[in-house]
């Protein structure tokens, strides 16, 4: 790798992604953390675009930034306790996290460097049409399964999150009882 290989765009994207990711896990305010995540995801979208995957970038922006970040903010708002916002977001045992994270990072990057450093030139990229075609051919079953997955997730999330989920039987509220045995 030489200076000729230096790619300012990529470097910038990398910096944005990594730094914002770092703030996601360090931010003391949960709202800030979610916003930092949004930045990371946007950076990732840029990354996709840089990798000639505009469709992915679009989807990334739509679902992740638009969907997940919103969902997260919603989640934070719903569950926040205003008086202790800062303390909640505190971290524990950072050295432990650092050790494990860096150990994995070192190992992965060594292997990645060894295995993939030799691949320089990008291959031709698939178009959105290609994506659509395989999606409805090879991945048709997976696609259908995915729809089931999403359905299940929705059902599950609704069941779990249903507020004031009064457990009542037709006869009225059920009192938790020690035994269901009729004497």
């Amino acid at each position, binding site marked *: 790798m030489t200076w000729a290989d230096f790619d300012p765009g990529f470097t910038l994207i990398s910096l944005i992604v990594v730094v914002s990711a770092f703030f996601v896990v360090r931010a003391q305010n949960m709202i800030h953390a979610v916003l930092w995540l949004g930045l990371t995801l946007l950076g990732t979208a840029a990354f996709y675009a840089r990798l000639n995957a505009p469709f992915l970038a679009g989807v990334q922006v739509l679902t992740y930034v638009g969907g997940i970040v919103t969902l997260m903010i919603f989640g934070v708002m719903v569950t926040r306790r205003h008086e202790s916002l800062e303390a909640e977001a505190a971290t524990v045992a950072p050295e432990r996290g650092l050790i494990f994270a860096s150990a994995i990072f070192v190992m992965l990057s060594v292997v*990645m460097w060894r295995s993939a450093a030799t691949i320089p030139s990008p291959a031709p990229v698939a178009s959105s049409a290609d994506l659509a075609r395989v999606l409805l051919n090879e*991945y*048709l079953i997976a696609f259908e*399964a995915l729809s089931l997955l999403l359905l299940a997730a929705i059902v599950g999330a609704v069941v779990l999150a249903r507020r004031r989920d009064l457990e009542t039987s037709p006869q009225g509220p*059920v009192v938790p009882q020690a035994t269901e045995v009729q004497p």
Partner: protein
Amino acid sequence: MNTWLQVLTLDLAVAAGAAVVLILDAIGTVSGRALGWLTAGLLAAVLGASFVVDVSGTVPHGVYVSGDWVLFFKRVFLIAGMLAVLGSIDWLAERTPRRQAEYYALTLFSLTGMMVVPGARDWVLLLVAFELMGIPLYVLAAWAKTDGQPQDEKLGPEAGLKLFVTGAASSAFTIFGLGLVIGETGSTAISALPAQPTQLTFVGMLMVIAGLGFKLGAVPFHMWVPDTYQGAPTPFVAFLSVAPKAGGLAALSVVTLTGWSAHQGLWATAIAVIAAASMLVGNLFALPQTDVRRLLGFSGVAQIGYVLIALGAGSQEGVAMALFFIATYVFTNLGAFLVVHAAAQASGGHETVKLAGLSRRTPWLGASLLVFLLSLAGIPFVLGFWAKLFVFVAAWRAGLSGLVVLGVVVAVLGLFYYLTVARSTFMAEGHTAEPVRAPMGLKVSIAVCLAAVVGLGLWPRPLVDEANKAASSFLQKR
């Protein structure tokens, strides 16, 4: 050649069942316990259909291969699902009467995912099916918003959360690993493998195995097991403790033995390490447990260690024996959990001491529990013995004698805690002699398990033959 719709008939039927259950509940046609019986009936019907309908074949592009292998697993899943649903009916109707349909639907969704897993030969399909199996479980684990004692009230969400966090982290690793594997091979076919796989491929592969290890509850991805078992509704735990493990086994087999069989040295090492750790940790941690659910949880961790030994052997025999093991494990563990459930409902707690005098209160339940425990411990003439034995034989033949010896030795530890439970059930005098009245569904379910464990324990041949057939079909068509 069947069309893909035909190949996936059973899976589609189960998925449709989920929809039907939800719809029937929504329009109010069927509700309450009837939904449960309906679901169980549906599963029974599908199980019956699996013997009638010809579902063998390969889907275009080879993403899904159906045959004896798949059928074996599907039947295991269907049986597990059916028995678990039967065991849940009354608990649900009494504890969470307003969420019954969702419970069954989610169970069916999870089952659909499971049923797709063993046939999947494409990473994408495998991943989606695997997640379809897993996500409903997160929800179901947290089902017990108010179960029994007040102190248990907080355990429900905790159970779900613990399962979720470890699960989501694991699946993140899995997907990351998959990225490396697929990227390196350039294809989403599981069997595809570059002629000269780079080290990165191997690392990715091992990360995938780590993700599967979570679902199996193997050490060190097992930490959720006892806590979730303790907090989740027991009838669901009966399901959770067996079916997803079979699914994990199926996935692990597919991942390791299609295409990757040439690199057995790699994954076999990983599996051996996990297996050894699981047997050791599971048995050791189970020793001091006082809650039967936790105890059975750790015991399950240990049992998975035994399954992994067989899989680590990498031979057709090893696969067959792993299948045999997991099938026996379904009946045994499910039965054990259901008996514990029945007893706990009557005595107000899942602690071992609460089982005191069970055999006097309701002899057949006590005897069943004993049989299940003996089976888990691997005592002759009950099903578990053959399972352990076959696994050991397969591993021994494959040269894994060290693991076999370790397994034999730690099995003694296992015996200690199984006997502790048996002691409580049989020897201790309970506070009451009042019989435990198990509801119908539970009774049927336990009886089926008991019949299987004893019957197949006396004559394991049919199951062995099935397992062998499945394994050979799998390895031929991989």
